[in-house]
């Protein structure tokens, strides 16, 4: 199944893009999705505790399952003022 991944702030810089499509196994969780991303961009590993995650713009947890066509957002905080 395919999910759309949205990236924000520092994650955009690391991955060089604001969104991408990722092929995941049926029943994959948000954590699985992020692990797939971190495999392509190793700099992302270890940043989970700094992220808000959402599925289809609704609050989600790392153990929530994704479904085909979902949009999964990974949102780090920004600190500028």
């Amino acid at each position, binding site marked *: 199944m395919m999910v759309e991944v949205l990236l924000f702030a520092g994650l955009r810089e690391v991955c060089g893009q604001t969104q991408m499509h990722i092929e995941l196994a049926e029943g994959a969780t948000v954590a699985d999705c992020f692990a797939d991303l971190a495999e392509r961009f190793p700099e992302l590993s270890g940043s989970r505790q*700094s992220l808000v995650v959402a599925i289809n713009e609704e609050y989600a947890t790392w153990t929530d399952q994704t479904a085909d066509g979902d949009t999964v*957002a990974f949102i*780090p*905080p920004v600190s*500028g*003022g």
Partner: protein
Amino acid sequence: MKDRLEAEQAERYQAHLALPKIGATGQRRLLRSRVLMVGIGGLGCPTALYLTASGVGTLGLLDDDIVDRSNLQRQVLYGTADIGKPKVQVARERLAGINPDVDLEPIEERLTPSNAMDLVEGWDLVIDGSDNFATRYVVNDACVLSRIPLISGSIFQFEGQVTVIQPPLSPCYRCLFRLPPREQPACRDAGVLAPLTGIIGSIMAAEAVKLTVAGDTALMGRLLLVDSLESSTRSVRVKSDPTCPLCGKEPSIDRPTAVAVCRSSDA
């Protein structure tokens, strides 16, 4: 502040009085409110301008920085002649000419774990427009422990974030972001689109007015994401983390506590 609005005030705030959701009752609430702005930089300047014009009763201006030439691209309270002067003093002078109803309290200090509880005490609302993660976690801790609502806004390049924090009505900053990310450069180094500071600062001021008038606001428990490159916004509903060390079921943080972050200097 008297219960009735004086004639000049009725004229000054006419456009608020015309709004049924604000009206004379709401405007009087604003005129009695005490709001502390943390950081008078890119976000603090527009937020303070709109809160002064809107007629908050007392506006605290907290910043320990001096005006630098690299601030002038976006920090709209300051001009070339102000370089080298304390931001809070220049801001007070600029804001004082806008609205005599507002008591301006410049506080030339840096908010730290040791003074945070004292600095937030007595304010009805705190607005965080600071420029570094260390301050953001400490402001959050002090506000949550003092039960003071907090409006948190921040920017990075073309992106901005705003949320309103008041547990248990919303999650706290630590629920959302348990740890700060790795070093994030200051605006001067990372770059920031100048008008984005006005967009985010204005949203923060709008949330402050609504929260003061109505006791609740749309961004309570929602994280607003603004992308000024795509000219788009998204918002995500966020929830409290029951394991949060500050506002969770078994909290371990009982005083403002520093998080390990790399340096970020000037916004």
